[in-house]
């Protein structure tokens, strides 16, 4: 494999336009990589061939205000700079600054020039300046850093070619002290108080929070609603393809493997793509417009108590739709500890895949009483929320706060989003999910197919085949563990199968209890079969106590291989996801046993 050495590193404060410049330099062909040993992502790509015919690596670092006294999340930038400065490869560092706020960053410029001498300044957002201010800034810049600074037009890519030319013949960056920088730019900057008319409503004592809930609710709802048709289409296409493959290849083990293992595995990967794309579209829009920073400021205080920050709110809320995009959205959370806690808490929130399971079990508990079922359903969602808050509280005490991590957040001016940049971010993050989490989901899907299919593949009846499968063996092995929570081996098989996706629990029970035809979670034949199902001693399988216990188990348990795969991708390790799997499932089991035993007594 050809290895491209890193050559250009983009450094700068948050919201300075680094990623926009990165997109222009790499021509949108790049990927995110986790910095070794951390949960922080870096953008990494190659300089696009239309700039020069030479392979150069470009690295986009997380936003940083200080290189000499970095806080927790800024260490990665300093480490990357130091690592690449010391490896003998020629390196050009580019400090990206918002030109409307140059006065703010004298210390960063001074430190940057000391640490990375072969470098230049890229000044963005020049389109927001009036012509007179721009000319005044040019005059000061030419005096202080002549020939080492470039305007960058984020919308049209103007000035990017100048950076590329400079990179080929870089020179030392000499800058004045931070005090002189501040003095020079204070004299020419717009000193009027920065304030936005819309902020009167955004931070309004009474209307601020309802407005926030409306905006976030719309985003959350669109992840649910707007993604549904595309998800249904993907589901339909893969079901059709799966059936067609069986016809083309024949009904043998190969056809079954291809149709139920491989094709349905691919379907399990791609079905989340619409939700991920829509969530990131919304998030990037809010981030680029400047609203996300304000939303983080609004929600910071309550989340601080459970180890997270205001920026955790959006990923947490997205977790109610689906944990996969929500865990990926935690990339926007600044601070490694807050991001880690956010990722670890998300699986407890009641995602949409739990809904069919809840619907089935509630229909068993309250037949013909939709009002009571709805009330308990609300209670289950609240239980998920309370469990997440408790998990956050515990994690905040267990995970040490490393170093100084204050809440000082720039409140950027409102800006029109840059559609090209938004498109690139959405594409990149969606691709990152498919490429990184996809193979793991596919592998686990094939493993589950093998568990539910073998060793008695030759049996014609799907129900009988499942009953004598390895998964059923596992279910029977689990029966002594499951019986204290009132579940028999068939429920155990359902729980194992639900690891493919929680809603599979419904179809697995339908197969195990010999219900044929098109089954939904509330279809009468399924409910009838489950209501009448008995244990060998003649007692009912699904009693109020046993159904309540399974409900409680599903609220807490991490029952989703895709979530596990995405956690591994984001945390760059299997250790924590497996610890979380064990931890949540043990707590879920203990609570389910407690529920069953108390209700039976």
């Amino acid at each position, binding site marked *: 494999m050809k290895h491209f050495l890193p050559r250009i590193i983009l450094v700068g404060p948050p919201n300075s336009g680094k990623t926009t410049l990165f997109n222009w330099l790499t021509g949108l062909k790049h990927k995110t990589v986790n910095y070794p040993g951390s949960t922080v992502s870096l953008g990494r790509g190659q300089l696009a061939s239309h700039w020069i015919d030479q392979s150069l690596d470009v690295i986009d670092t997380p936003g940083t205000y200080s290189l000499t006294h970095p806080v927790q999340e800024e260490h990665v930038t300093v480490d990357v700079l130091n690592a690449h400065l010391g490896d003998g490869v020629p390196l050009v560092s580019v400090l990206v600054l918002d030109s409307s706020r140059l006065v703010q960053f004298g210390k960063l410029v001074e430190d940057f020039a000391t640490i990375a001498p072969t470098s230049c300044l890229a000044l963005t957002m020049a389109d927001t300046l009036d012509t007179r201010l721009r000319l005044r800034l040019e005059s000061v810049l030419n005096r202080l850093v002549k020939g080492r600074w470039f305007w960058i037009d984020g919308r049209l890519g103007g000035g990017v070619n100048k950076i590329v030319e400079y990179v080929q013949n870089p020179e030392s960056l000499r800058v004045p002290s931070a005090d002189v920088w501040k003095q020079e730019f204070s004299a020419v900057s717009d000193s009027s108080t920065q304030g936005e008319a819309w902020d009167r409503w955004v931070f309004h004592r009474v209307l601020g929070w309802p407005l926030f809930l409306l905006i976030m609710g719309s985003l959350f709802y669109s992840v649910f609603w707007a993604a549904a048709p595309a998800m249904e289409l993907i589901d339909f296409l893969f079901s059709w393809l799966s059936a067609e493959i069986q016809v083309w290849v024949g009904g043998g083990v190969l056809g079954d493997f291809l149709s139920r293992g491989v094709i349905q595995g691919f379907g399990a990967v791609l079905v989340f793509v619409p939700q991920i794309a829509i969530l990131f579209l919304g998030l990037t829009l809010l981030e680029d417009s400047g609203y996300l920073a304000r939303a983080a400021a609004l929600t910071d205080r*309550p989340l601080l108590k459970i180890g997270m920050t205001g920026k955790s709110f959006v990923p947490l809320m997205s977790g109610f739709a689906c944990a996969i995009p929500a865990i990926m959205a935690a990339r926007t959370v600044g601070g490694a500890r807050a991001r880690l806690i956010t990722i670890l808490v998300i699986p407890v929130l009641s995602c949409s895949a739990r809904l069919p399971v809840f619907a089935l079990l509630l229909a068993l508990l309250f037949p013909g009483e939709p009002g009571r079922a709805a009330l308990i359903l609300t209670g289950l969602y609240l239980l998920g929320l309370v469990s997440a808050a408790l998990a956050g509280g515990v994690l905040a005490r267990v995970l040490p706060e490393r170093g100084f991590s204050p809440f000082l957040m720039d409140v950027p001016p409102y800006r029109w989003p840059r559609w090209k940049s938004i498109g690139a971010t959405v594409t990149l993050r969606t691709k990152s999910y498919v490429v990184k989490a996809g193979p793991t989901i596919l592998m686990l899907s094939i493993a589950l197919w093998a568990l539910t299919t073998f060793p008695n593949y030759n049996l014609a009846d799907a129900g009988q085949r499942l009953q004598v499968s390895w998964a059923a063996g596992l279910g029977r092995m689990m029966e002594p563990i499951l019986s204290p929570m009132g579940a028999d081996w068939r429920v155990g098989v359902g729980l194992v199968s639900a690891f493919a996706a929680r809603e599979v629990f419904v179809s697995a029970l339908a197969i195990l209890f010999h219900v044929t035809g098109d089954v939904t979670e509330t279809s009468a034949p399924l409910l009838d079969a489950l209501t009448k199902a008995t244990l060998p001693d003649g007692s009912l399988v699904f009693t109020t106590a046993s159904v309540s216990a399974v409900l409680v188990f599903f609220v807490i348990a991490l029952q989703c291989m895709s979530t596990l795969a995405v956690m591994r991708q984001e945390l760059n390790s299997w250790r924590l996801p497996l610890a979380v799997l064990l931890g949540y499932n043990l707590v879920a089991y203990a609570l389910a046993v407690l529920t069953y035993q108390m209700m039976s007594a």
Partner: protein
Amino acid sequence: MTLMTHLSSVAHVGTSWRIHEIDGTEDMKRRLHAMGIHEGDKLTVLHALPFSGGWVVSFGPFAVAFRREEAESILVQGPLP
């Protein structure tokens, strides 16, 4: 009458102050300097964050959101007209 007190105790929306001293920890001082906030700077309290005890404060061309804890590290003089 000119007051000298911590920003957290006088951060009323619409008032302006001059930073006399950053008297928090050394880390806090460095952080504020890194964000372009220095002794002698003029600030204006733009908004109080609802239900959080924090503020959005303008420093001329840029604005920063503070928690109460950070505002307790900033000794200000004023109010300015």
